[in-house]
């Protein structure tokens, strides 16, 4: 699982290789195969748990990091369901803004769900839960729409930094290590999302 990035390895014919990104990756933590196996397991578990709810299952993800995980997870759930995506604007600091004691603004939904969730079983898909602030906001908003049930699926879970400890996280793929993870949708400044594996970013890249 924690093997160093094969810098000297040659890519398979027809396969992409990501050596241009390799200098910024410290090591590969989860390979494509590790992730695929775990996602299939989670899909099977969700299928078993929600087998009795009929067509009332709504699965939606929060863009943009969740895209690869959502695509793989949806295909491994063997149930009729409706899927959607939601986008919220992330926090953006403005260092040169005046006055210095500025207001941060508030989180806003840039793309809401197109399907109704009232009275239905809702599954929120997230790539990683760290402090849980984003999901806390979304879960509160979804609860106001009165779904029949609400649960959260996450690929990576980091409990140590959790602020919103009361989130209903029911399915968790991996316990996230104490590193800055990139790849498989996870980004650093919108980069590295296209990596098929999850690696840890070198500290000198993000510790400015």
């Amino acid at each position, binding site marked *: 699982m924690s093997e160093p990035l094969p810098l000297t390895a040659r890519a398979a014919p027809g396969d992409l290789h990501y050596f241009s990104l390799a200098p910024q990756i410290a090591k590969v933590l989860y390979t494509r195969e590790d992730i695929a196996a775990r996602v299939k397991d989670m899909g099977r578990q969700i299928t078993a748990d929600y087998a009795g709810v009929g067509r009332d299952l709504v699965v939606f993800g929060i863009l943009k990091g969740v895209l690869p995980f959502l695509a793989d997870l949806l295909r491994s759930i063997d149930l009729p369901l409706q899927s959607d995506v939601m986008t919220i604007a992330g*926090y953006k600091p403005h260092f040169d803004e005046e006055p210095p*004691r500025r*207001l941060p603004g508030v*989180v806003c939904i840039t793309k809401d769900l197109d399907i109704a969730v009232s009275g239905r079983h809702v599954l929120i898909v997230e790539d990683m839960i760290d402090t849980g602030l984003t999901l*806390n906001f979304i879960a509160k908003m979804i609860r106001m729409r009165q779904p029949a049930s609400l649960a959260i699926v996450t690929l990576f879970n980091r409990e*140590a*930094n959790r602020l919103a400890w009361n989130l209903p996280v029911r399915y968790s793929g991996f316990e996230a290590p104490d*590193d800055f993870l990139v790849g498989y949708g996870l980004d650093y400044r919108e980069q590295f999302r296209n990596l098929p594996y999850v690696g840890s970013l070198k500290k000198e890249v993000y510790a400015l």
Partner: protein
Amino acid sequence: MSLTLLPPTIVEQPDNHSARKFTARITRVRPISSLTRTREMRNKKWRANPYKFVRFAHPVEAEFARVLTYYRVRWLYEPHQFPLDWHPDGTVARMFSPDFYLPEFNLYAELTTQKQTLVTRKNAKLRRLRELYPDINIRLFYRKDLQRMLGRFGISVTSHTVTPPGGLAV
């Protein structure tokens, strides 16, 4: 001798000077409704922009507060102090004041930007806090946690120790 038989000049009059002053002061105080209104206005201004009122010890704390406000999580900055050790005469020898309290989660958050090798003292304080107050939920964010969390928003976390006047930096 009965008091009523004394001439009126000798009868001790109650010193109502202070009462008169007190009455006069009462008249100068604004009515209750006005006070309430002022308090409400102050609270409204606080809610509108708390950064005008709070003096953060470190820029990272201000950024952390902004991130919380952005995600609509209520926070209080250093609202409570917990005594950790006492002198033999009963006075407090050591206190701990967590940086943030989040009422929604009933959780305290303490941030530190010191290097991992220098946080021993803070860890000891936190251990003592958990011993004395086991019901307190507290999360300690180390420098690397803040770098990772705030780094995603493009915020740099620099080590910057603040020494309060007349006190040691902790």
